[in-house]
């Protein structure tokens, strides 16, 4: 009887525990990170009575969580990949949308700007045309600034997200380390694993994987080591390292990531997770777009300013700068201790390109490290590099470094320099007047100042044709006035090269034909305006491969392609993550129907066990009654 009581009560106890495990599963059906727990019952060793063994009842052998560490690892990887592609895409699609917004589109503004030069060409002295041109130039500059500011705003937001992400990483690292220590002590004291602590730690690691790609190594004592990026330790057993954000050495407007209390940066080593995605989108999409925009502004303003300097404004003076000069510079490292500065100015427009080089000084020589090719060369200043004139001032100290990233902040000072519409140089520089008595049909059809410094002319230049100007049979011109010379006439090409100017003739000369060269009468001259207008169509940037509007188009399509690519990446990563989540959930997740069935099963077993106790009681009562009689 005692046996039966024992068996019954052991069953009641075991089933009650099993029911509460199932109940706990039901209770946590929606708890994030919860792993379904499985209670395992075990038959108790019975007693030998006579020749037979009789069962000793049942006991709850263990309550374990359903967890597959391989699926868990795969889920972490997929979580990082998805979070990375998601944060990349979310930022990219905003840059993409910014370019799509026609109110911010630079293409349209550039087209209007160049069309305004055409309109000015139709009426070179027109006040209205000049004012419109200035307004269109303002609009174009504003579009550049607003797009550049938009990109800066997004960069700032990315930086803020990185900063708060790093705080979260630190918090999670700390909590993983704490959980490690709890798990170590729980594992050593108890028999079964501390399921809930393990779940919490897995959840913390999964949240960490959401932020940044991690790798996890299990230790013998139940703790795990967590590292980020390419093996950068974050949690080692019960210890953890803090990360921090700080300003980039060369770009104070950008943040980079490093270990707290150590100077090296690990930004470039981090991979995956939100942080990886943010760092990637900043490096691959926002910065290139910003620099392309800066390059475009630098190219455009140099082209327009150069052309403006080739013509005369309405006051008869050579045109001054149309756009203010851009702040291009090689950025000094924040670690520099010398007073050296490297100033940068555009020299050859067609050679401008996106560069990434670092100059460093070893105490006697400067070397230039190209980040794209990985090559290092020794250089001396002043230096012309990729269309830029670099000059050094101040004293450098060994170890000083500069990074040439000329277009990163170029737009900040991009502005229209002239305010007076009369200062727009629509006219060419020189004009000719044929002598009233010229017998031949000779005309000057093109004339160009090869040394623009002579314009406006101090006095007119008078040319008289003579068949024997340079000796018998050698035709040429006697030149007087601002230039005094006797120059040969190239009868085949019909040109003369007159010191500071080149003249192109048509028609046959007759002895004594004369011409007068004067500064252009600016009111009706549109040659420079037409030359300006043609800048939009000329392939005059990036080594003569692309026009200004083409360069903008390339920038838009680069962003669009990257965005499209990241969208596809994100779709793939989401599908992979879903698959991984489903696999993991099929092992660890709670199915309520399953738990209901189990509940009914255990309830019935419990009731049966209770009945067993009643039977034992009845049997006992029967025995007592029999004795009492």
């Amino acid at each position, binding site marked *: 009887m005692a046996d039966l009581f024992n068996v019954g009560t052991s069953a009641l106890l075991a089933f009650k525990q099993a029911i509460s495990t199932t109940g706990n599963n039901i209770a946590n059906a929606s708890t994030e990170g919860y792993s379904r727990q499985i209670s395992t019952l075990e038959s108790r060793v019975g007693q030998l009575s006579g020749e037979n063994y009789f069962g000793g009842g049942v006991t709850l052998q263990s309550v374990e969580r359903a967890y597959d560490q391989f699926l868990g690892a795969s889920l972490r990887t997929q979580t990082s990949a998805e979070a990375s592609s998601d944060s990349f895409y979310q930022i990219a*699609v905003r840059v993409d949308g910014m*370019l799509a917004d026609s109110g911010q589109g630079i293409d349209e503004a550039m087209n209007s700007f160049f069309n305004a030069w*055409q309109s000015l060409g139709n009426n070179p*002295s027109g006040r209205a045309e000049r004012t419109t041109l200035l307004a269109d130039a303002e609009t174009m500059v504003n579009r550049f600034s607003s797009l550049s500011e938009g990109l800066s705003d997004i960069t700032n937001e990315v930086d803020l997200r990185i900063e708060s992400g790093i705080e979260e990483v630190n918090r999670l690292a700390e909590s993983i380390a704490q959980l490690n220590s709890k798990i170590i002590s729980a594992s050593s004291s108890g028999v079964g694993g501390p399921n809930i602590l393990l779940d919490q730690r897995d959840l913390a690691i999964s949240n960490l994987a959401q932020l940044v790609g991690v790798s996890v190594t299990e230790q013998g004592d139940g703790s795990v080591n967590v590292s980020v990026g390419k093996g950068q330790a974050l949690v080692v057993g019960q210890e953890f390292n803090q990360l921090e954000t700080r300003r980039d050495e060369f770009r104070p407007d950008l943040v980079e990531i490093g270990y707290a209390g150590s100077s090296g940066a690990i930004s470039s080593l981090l991979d995956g997770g939100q942080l990886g995605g943010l760092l990637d989108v900043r490096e691959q999409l926002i910065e290139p777009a910003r620099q392309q925009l800066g390059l475009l502004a630098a190219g455009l303003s140099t082209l327009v300013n150069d052309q403006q300097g080739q013509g005369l404004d309405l006051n008869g003076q050579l045109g001054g700068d149309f756009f203010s000069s851009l702040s291009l510079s090689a950025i000094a490292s924040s670690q520099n201790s010398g007073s050296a500065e490297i100033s940068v100015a555009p020299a050859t427009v067609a050679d401008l390109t996106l560069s990434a080089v670092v100059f460093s000084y070893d105490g006697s020589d400067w070397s230039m490290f190209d980040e794209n090719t990985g090559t290092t060369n020794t250089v001396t200043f002043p230096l012309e590099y990729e269309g830029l004139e670099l000059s050094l001032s101040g004293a450098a100290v060994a170890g000083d470094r500069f990074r040439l990233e000329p277009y990163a902040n170029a737009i900040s000072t991009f502005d229209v320099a002239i305010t007076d519409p009369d200062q727009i140089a629509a006219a060419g520089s020189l004009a000719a007047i044929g002598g*009233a008595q010229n017998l031949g049909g000779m005309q000057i059809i093109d004339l160009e100042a090869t040394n623009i410094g002579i314009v406006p002319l101090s006095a007119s230049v008078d040319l008289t044709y003579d068949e024997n100007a340079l000796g018998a049979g050698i035709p040429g011109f006697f030149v007087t006035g601002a230039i005094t010379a006797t120059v040969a006439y190239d009868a085949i090409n019909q040109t003369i090269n007159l010191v500071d100017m080149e003249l192109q003739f048509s028609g046959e000369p007759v002895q004594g034909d004369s011409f007068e060269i004067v500064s252009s*009468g600016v009111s*009706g001259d549109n040659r420079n305006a037409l030359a300006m207008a043609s800048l939009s169509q000329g392939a005059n940037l990036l080594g003569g491969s692309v026009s200004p509007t083409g360069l903008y188009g390339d920038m838009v*399509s680069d962003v669009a392609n990257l965005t499209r690519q990241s969208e596809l990446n994100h779709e793939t990563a989401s599908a992979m993550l879903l698959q991984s989540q489903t696999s993991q959930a099929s092992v660890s997740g709670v199915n309520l129907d399953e738990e*209901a069935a189990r509940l009914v099963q255990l309830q019935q077993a419990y009731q049966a066990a209770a009945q067993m106790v009643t039977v034992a009681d009845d049997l006992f009562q029967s025995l007592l009654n029999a004795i009492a009689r």
Partner: protein
Amino acid sequence: MRVSTAQQYQQAISQMLDQQTQIQKTQIQLSSGQRLLKPSDDPTATRQLLSLEQSQSALQQFSTNLGLAEGRLSQTESILGDTGDLLQRVRELTVQANSGTQSDEGRKAIAVEIESVGEQLLALANSRDQSGNYLFAGFRSDGAPFSITPSGTEYLGDDGQRSVQIAADVSVLTHDSGSRVFMNILGANGSFVTNYPDANTGSLLIGETSSAGEILTETLSVEFTQATESDPVLYEVFDSGGASVSTGEYAENMVLEIDGQSLTLSGTPADGDSFEIAPPIPQDVFSRISDIATMLREPVTGATGSTQLSNDLARALESLDQASTHLSGYRSELGSRLQMLDTQSQVNQDFALFITEQVSSISDLDTTEAISRLNLQLVGLQAAQQAYVKVQGLSLFNYI
């Protein structure tokens, strides 16, 4: 495989959210009529679209330029037409004045009229375009290019010619310099002039002149001699060095040919009469007209005076014709420019149409396709919602 209840719900919800995102995109596409909502929807098409829009914008500007060019050239052409009419009027008046029946007073009256025609001509040459710029001033279009001074016509412009762009690689001249149009036109027949001195006493008339095309470069002189009244009249031509070039007997209506230049001579030259054949002098249109007026204002004395005037007026008429030919040559050049504008305008329109079609095929939404897509998406979402509600109702707990 086991299914986690929470995961089942989560998945159903996120799929419905995805479907709603798709529906929203289709909805925006339909309401905007645009296939591309952002560059990344189709990066290649976006790049193409940017180029096409640039071409479109340039074409619009070219069409504006073309319209303005057409206006200016038409205006110039009409001015040239008027100029031709005025020159014709001067010619008629000159012919009228060259009649032997005209008195000094009659010629003076004609001179007054010719002078007023000359003023009209000057006003035409000082015309302005619709922006108020002088048409014939070269690059100095802010001031009137022509002014008449006591020393002659003064051209204040320069030789600049203004052009505008009417297609990517096509420009057209819209403003020609006044010097090209009205000045520097060679006098008489364009190859040589004749100078008939006052001292001549005979009645020689130098009639029609012509030239093989060469411009005379040296001054020749023709001298007539007649030993006695009964002898034939002989002529001798000397070159600029005084050497005799040719000689012969003069005959009424003879054609004198020297160096490819020919002159028809009539009347009776007196012994000792002479005239010069000289290189032509480039001259402007206005001086020609005022020269005629000056000739007509001079009183004519006797037969020699009349002969003198006739000879001068004959050359003046040739000069006028020369100017007319020059101007009508320029006018036909304007005509061919206008013709070119017409052709280019057609080409531009065709190109613009082509671009519009391209833009539309790239960026416009295929509405039929989008609507059927929307229907499909709506059906999908409805099905998902219904399935969700049904599955949600299923639980073993309902039966315990």
